[in-house]
């Protein structure tokens, strides 16, 4: 029979709708701006009376409090307006002593049963809500030193293959010094090296017994290395905080050697730091042979076992910035392993180093850069001085089974946990130069309240206009299309919430625009039905033919657009990627609602009934 759906189709639609509803629901319970008051010591407890004092002080200052709560960790005061958050904190901080910490917080208000289904709301973007601001400093000296190490390794390799004997290498500042036993050796080395390394200024030093060659990096090269280090770190950090491109962070260079990372929605700096990730670095080196001269080796402890150590070559094969990805999996025998992918140059270097060294061990050295605060007294004032220090430890020592290339694996790990940890360490070490956290602050929204209000209003009016237009033009069918539109919006929001997308003002405008375009499928169908009616078809036949004939148009048009979105997703980065995600989701949900949901409603209303005239 025409225009009837089998039961399973209705059920399928209902299931999708239910899931959509559940996962979009948390957005109705947005996170409240709040002030968290907790004591640094366990013995100072905060009670109901203090809460009363806080709230009355806040309302005196004209700050609207929605709710105050007391739990084991302290007092949480939820505020009506995010703009008041900072002044509320200042007011309360003045009222309490030093042993109490007053911090900004975003308190979840999602009901427990939704949380248990791991449904959570979308975060509001930096423009609407603000977030947390980190200032990171790139250690340029370390970046230079690292580059000089790599160059020194390559030079030593060259000298060895040319059979020129050298006594040692020294790195100081931006100068690399090679010591030789005789002037002839030095001069021969200079000839060979200078052709391959044009970025240095060469100088012969003759002091004491031997002859040395001092190579100083040119100013231009130093700048290039610094730019490279900053840009590489920017890219790595961007990818870390925004894997899908929908998190809307801000990552930009500030000043000559700093990077700003702003994350929307989070105000808890500890949680945000975990997202930004470890600030570590890696070096892949061969283990020294027993007969290797001491001058070419260095000894390191293992990171997870300080009693164990290994002697490694000084030569660095590649550093962490060549690692493009690392993941854990299982080998054919079900044993845990870690897969590593390198970039192009990294792969070439790795291949060159390993193909002649099969059977030797290769170590991965994890270099962590930390700072500790030291209080120094200067001119009678206490000044906190930040002192950087470095921890080096071996995280993996494995035998080279064959010549390695762009992608290889580390096997022989004891447990899946070890594999997971190793891959995490490898990923977090993929920075071109060490970075330190310098400053962390919360920041307010970048848009004024006035601008936000106007934006939201315009979006509401835009949506209303679409709904009215459909009603006026297609009457009953317009109503059905509008129901479809509401379902479409619900599904879209559910999908975006599940992906952890961040909502910015342009993002909201984009969603409404998607809805404006999503009516296209319905319009195509309804215009076709009208046309078939004019051509003299019966009502049921016209509905059937309308859906049927509009089908190819809808599918062709949407699949082409979907193709564009998929390619932009796989190739694009950052916001382009994020846009592609939203666009594809919008296409899928609008196709689902237009082709299945509105059809189901039409079938329920008209299907199999003797209808004389359609209100379309």
């Amino acid at each position, binding site marked *: 029979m025409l225009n009837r759906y089998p039961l399973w189709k209705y059920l399928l639609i209902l299931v999708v709708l239910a899931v959509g509803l559940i996962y979009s629901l948390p957005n109705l319970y947005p996170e409240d701006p709040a002030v968290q008051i907790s004591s640094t010591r366990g013995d100072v407890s905060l009670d109901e009376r203090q809460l009363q004092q806080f709230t009355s002080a806040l309302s005196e200052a004209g700050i609207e409090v929605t709710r105050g709560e007391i739990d084991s960790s302290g007092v949480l005061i939820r505020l009506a307006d995010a703009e008041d958050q*900072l*002044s509320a904190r*200042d007011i309360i901080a003045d009222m309490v002593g030093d042993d109490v910490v007053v911090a900004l917080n975003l308190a979840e208000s999602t009901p427990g049963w939704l949380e248990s289904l791991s449904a959570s709301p979308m975060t509001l973007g930096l*423009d609407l809500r603000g977030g947390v601001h980190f200032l990171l400093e790139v250690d340029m000296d370390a970046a230079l030193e690292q580059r000089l190490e790599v160059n020194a390794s390559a030079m030593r390799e060259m000298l060895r293959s040319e059979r020129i004997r050298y006594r040692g290498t020294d790195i100081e500042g931006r100068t690399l010094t090679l010591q030789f036993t005789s002037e002839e050796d030095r001069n021969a080395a200079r000839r060979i090296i200078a052709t391959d390394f044009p970025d240095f200024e060469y100088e012969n030093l003759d002091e004491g017994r031997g002859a040395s060659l001092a190579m100083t990096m040119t100013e231009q090269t130093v700048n290039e290395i610094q730019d490279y280090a900053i*840009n590489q770190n*920017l890219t790595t950090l*961007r990818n870390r905080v925004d894997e899908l491109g929908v998190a809307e962070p801000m990552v*930009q*260079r*500030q*000043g000559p050697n*700093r990077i700003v990372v702003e994350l929307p929605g989070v105000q808890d700096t500890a949680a945000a730091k975990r997202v930004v990730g470890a600030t570590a670095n890696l070096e892949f080196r061969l283990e020294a042979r027993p007969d290797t001269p001491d001058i070419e080796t260095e000894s390191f402890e293992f990171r997870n076992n300080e009693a164990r150590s290994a002697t490694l070559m000084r030569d660095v094969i590649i550093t962490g910035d060549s690692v493009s990805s690392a993941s854990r999996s299982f080998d054919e025998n079900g044993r845990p392993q870690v897969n590593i992918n390198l970039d192009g140059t990294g792969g070439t270097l790795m291949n060159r180093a390993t193909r002649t060294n099969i059977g030797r061990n290769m170590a991965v050295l994890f270099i962590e850069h930390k700072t500790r605060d030291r209080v120094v007294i200067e001119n009678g004032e206490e000044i906190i001085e930040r002192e950087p220090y470095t921890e080096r430890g071996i995280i993996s020592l494995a035998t080279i089974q064959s010549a390695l290339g762009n992608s290889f694996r580390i096997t022989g790990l004891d447990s899946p946990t070890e594999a997971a940890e190793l891959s995490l360490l490898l990923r977090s070490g993929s920075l071109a130069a060490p970075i330190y956290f310098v400053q962390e*602050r*919360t*920041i*307010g929204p*970048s*848009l*004024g309240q*006035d*601008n936000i209000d*106007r*934006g939201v*209003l*315009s*979006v509401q009016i*835009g949506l209303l*206009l*679409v709904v009215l*237009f*459909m009603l006026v*033009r297609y009457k009953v069918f317009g109503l059905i299309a509008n129901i479809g539109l509401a379902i479409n919006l619900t599904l879209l929001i559910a999908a975006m919430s599940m992906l952890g997308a961040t909502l910015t*003002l*342009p993002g909201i405008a984009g969603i409404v*625009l998607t*809805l*404006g*375009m999503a*009516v*296209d499928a319905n*319009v195509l169908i309804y*215009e076709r039905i009208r046309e078939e009616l004019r051509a003299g078809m019966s009502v049921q036949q016209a509905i059937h033919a309308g859906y*049927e004939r509009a*089908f*190819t*148009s809808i599918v*062709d*048009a949407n*699949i*082409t*657009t979907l*193709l*564009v979105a998929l*390619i932009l997703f796989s*190739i694009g*980065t950052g*916001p382009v990627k994020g*846009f*592609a995600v939203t*666009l594809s989701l919008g296409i899928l949900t609008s196709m689902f609602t237009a082709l299945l949901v509105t059809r189901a409603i039409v079938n329920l209303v008209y299907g199999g009934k003797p209808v004389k005239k359609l209100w379309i």
Partner: protein
Amino acid sequence: MRQFDFMGKRRLAFIASAVMVLVSIIALAVQQLNLGLDFTGGTLVEVRYAVAPSLDSVRQLLENAGFRDISVQTFGAANEVLIRLQQAYDDNVGEQVVGLLSESGDRVNLVRAEFVGAQVGEQLRDRSGLGMLVALGIVMVYVAFRFQYKFALGALLALVHDVIITLGVFSLFQIEFDLTVLAALLAVIGYSLNDTIVVYDRIRENIRKSRIDDMTQIFNDAINMTLARTLATSGTTLLVLLALLTLGGDMIEGFALALLVGVGVGTFSSIYVASALLLTLKLQRQDLIPAQKEDPEAEELP
């Protein structure tokens, strides 16, 4: 229903298109795009007030002084303010801003002023460009497979036409081009493609159905049949965009404008670039006959 002779005016439309594209290319070549803070970077100024200021008045003051693309945020505390400006960094910007802000009698101290880099890295730019090219290539292959290669050529040309003209408007009037405008441009591509395929679909259907050989007539019929749909869809989209443009404030203005231009040009190009080009390419009924076999299959999909 009244029938319009769309194809009869195609020479005029070709000239109009050519002029618009030419003007756009010249504008882009001569004065490029007026790139926003997202792309150029600028200066970051951190100031400390004695008393927490109103952020709106800070914004207003800076705007009146002629600074462009300003973002003003509280920074850690209510009386510390972080300002980003699209002003090329020099040693005086910080002092200049502080001087300006303290004119109204507030006590303002400069904490620091530094340059900030672009939010959009080179990697994003290069890879997005590559992504566009690959996307265009794949779309051409798909359209050639589903329709015919002449259609693919038309669709591609229409897309390029729309993107160039939209960019041209932003360049000609030196309207700020930021990340939201880039997103809008991507949406224009989606919209334009969608619109073109819908018209193409009807042309293909009519060529197969009709017994006449007058392609101009078939094209006119197809476009007239889809006209109601085109107007309704563009209509709803334009309604949304007009609401966003007139009421939305600075942040969505560029976004709405880019789409407004793009949707307008996109609708025009579906008819006069994508479709009219098929006539110029001498599309024959025979061009579509091999594809006829797969058609019944496609319609039986659920």
